[in-house]
């Protein structure tokens, strides 16, 4: 009896061991090393809080976090607003037999390199790019607009990517929604708009929040897009982290900045988990 109980207990552990080992090796260990590094001095001295105090006392560093939060918030909101109707059209308006193809076409840009996609946007938004040529050619503007190398360009590049991601999560949520809910709402006299606002939207909120959280996490930690499209006219946190490594190899300060970034992501997760109960979705 005892041996059966023991083997019954051992099996779940055996099954999760590979995942635990993976997490320990590729998350916990690097995280501990990073935390340790963040508390050491660049010149090889002892423990110090200087790396953290630099961040909180230097306005240029602090501004990088503010910029990151602003850009991430804007990207997340715009991506949700664009992705929801897109996912809804795919799930509700496109015939079932075409949905798979439509979804594949929708995520087609995922198949191209992230770097290539960002440079493509740079060419589209450039002074001599497609948009500016159209605007000046049509006579709407006499001079090209500064679109590339701006925050607008960074946001555009991010939104292009994250709309695809959010479309997938919201589409999956919409497809899981039983038609019975809508039928019940209709039976009770609710019109399409009311059914959407009071039934469909609340039931798909978990999908929206999961997608929004993923967008937040991936966006706030991304280095490539702001580096290529933003023109370094403002620094975001990942750029500030990379700057510490390039020439000076200041890994302690880079680690401290990364820990701060992780803390922000953790706060965002806790906020989402508490308010929307993602863990039970």
């Amino acid at each position: 009896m005892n041996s059966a109980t023991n083997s019954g207990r051992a099996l779940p552990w055996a099954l999760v061991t590979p995942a635990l080992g993976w997490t320990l090796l590729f998350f916990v260990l690097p995280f501990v090393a990073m935390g340790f590094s963040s508390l050491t001095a660049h010149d090889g001295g002892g423990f110090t809080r200087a790396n953290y105090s630099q961040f909180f006392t230097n306005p240029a560093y602090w501004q990088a976090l503010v910029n990151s939060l602003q850009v991430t918030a804007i990207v997340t909101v715009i991506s949700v607003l664009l992705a929801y109707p897109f996912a809804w059209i795919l799930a509700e308006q496109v015939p079932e037999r075409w949905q798979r193809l439509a979804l594949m076409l929708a995520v087609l840009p995922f198949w191209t390199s992230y770097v290539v996609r960002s440079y493509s946007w740079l060419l589209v938004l450039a002074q001599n790019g497609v948009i500016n040529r159209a605007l000046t050619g049509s006579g709407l503007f006499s001079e090209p607009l500064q679109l590339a190398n701006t925050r607008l360009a960074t946001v555009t590049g991010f939104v292009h990517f994250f709309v695809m991601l959010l479309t997938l999560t919201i589409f999956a949520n919409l497809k899981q929604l039983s038609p019975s809910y809508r039928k019940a709402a209709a039976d009770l006299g609710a019109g399409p708009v009311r059914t959407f606002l009071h039934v469909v939207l609340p039931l798909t909120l978990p999908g929206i929040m999961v997608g929004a959280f993923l967008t937040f996490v991936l966006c706030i930690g991304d280095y490539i897009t702001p580096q290529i499209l933003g023109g370094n006219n403002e620094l975001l946190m990942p750029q500030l982290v990379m700057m510490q490594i390039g020439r000076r190899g200041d890994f302690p300060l880079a680690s401290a900045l990364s820990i701060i970034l992780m803390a922000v992501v953790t706060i965002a997760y806790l906020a989402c988990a508490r308010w929307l109960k993602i863990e039970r979705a």
Partner: protein
Amino acid sequence: MTINPNAPHPTTRKPISVLKSHLHAACAATALLLATGSLAQAADLNALIWCDHADPALLQPFEEANGVKVNVKEFEGTGAGMAIVEQSQPGDWDVMVIDSIDIPRGVEKGLFEPLPEDKLPLADLFPQVKMDSSTVVDGKRYGITEKFGYNTIGYNKTKVDPADMQSLAALTGDKYKGKIAIYDYYLPVIGMAALAIGKKTTELTEADLPDIKQELLKMKANAKLVGEVTASQTALATGEVDILVGGGEWVTAGLAKENPALDFSIPREGAVLWSQSLAMFKDSKNKDTALKFIQYIMSPEGQARLATSACYWGMPANTKAALTDEQKKILRFDEQPDFLARAQPYPAPDADLDKKMQDVWTEMLQAQ
């Protein structure tokens, strides 16, 4: 050149440093394997390089002549390169390309092997780029300059008045506002800002930083973007901007055939001389092959191939580089004596001033 006497000696490292080092090594081992693939055979040459050395047209003749494979790993920035070395096993790497001014950093860490001067064509080098103050430490040569150029003003001569490009003042005036890009590397551009306000790049101190910052802010106010190599080169080549602060032959020469309108000037105030060197690792298991590689790169043939590498062009350090007349014309080879006379060395701050310079650069980038 002297070594920082306060630097911890390798054999008297504090326990915390040892633990830190072990942690770094443990975390990096897997990443290194993933990044470099399986490590090379002992007979191969493992080179930590900048992108110009990855050109097959440069490596192939050496590989065929010596029957070895050159395994390369590209890096950007001395800090990143040093991190790769520290996270590797001793002997993993044979040679390294490094900013000439940073050779003492490698020597201080005990990484480099002295080079035999009698087996290198030092007499053929442009005297001004030998950089003995950096490449020679305690009387021993640890690096040899292989390529150089200028961080100066790169521009499109059909869009701007070349006469204006003879002064750094053009970068902060109103005439070219919004037509300027700044190369995103703080040392050379801070050097240019220093030249613009009449300072010598070799004499910069912390007290100069407020004035330099003001000059940088004026440049930023006129700039459309601050971009790394590819971004700034693309901006100039596509007409997004007409002037690149910090640009030079390394931007314009490689694009000369496609865009002959691109050119560079050495303004009255001067320009910043950049140079890259080759160094051999002390723990290299293939020192003979490593030396042969350095000799090949420094040979007239190797120098010509390196100078015209697909990644970026630059002046060969060897005056006898086997360049064609056309290539010499593009690189403005014959004008080098005059350029070198007016150029000032790359700023070489100590660690503390380096950090402060980077913070000034960060503040400039964040300024709106």
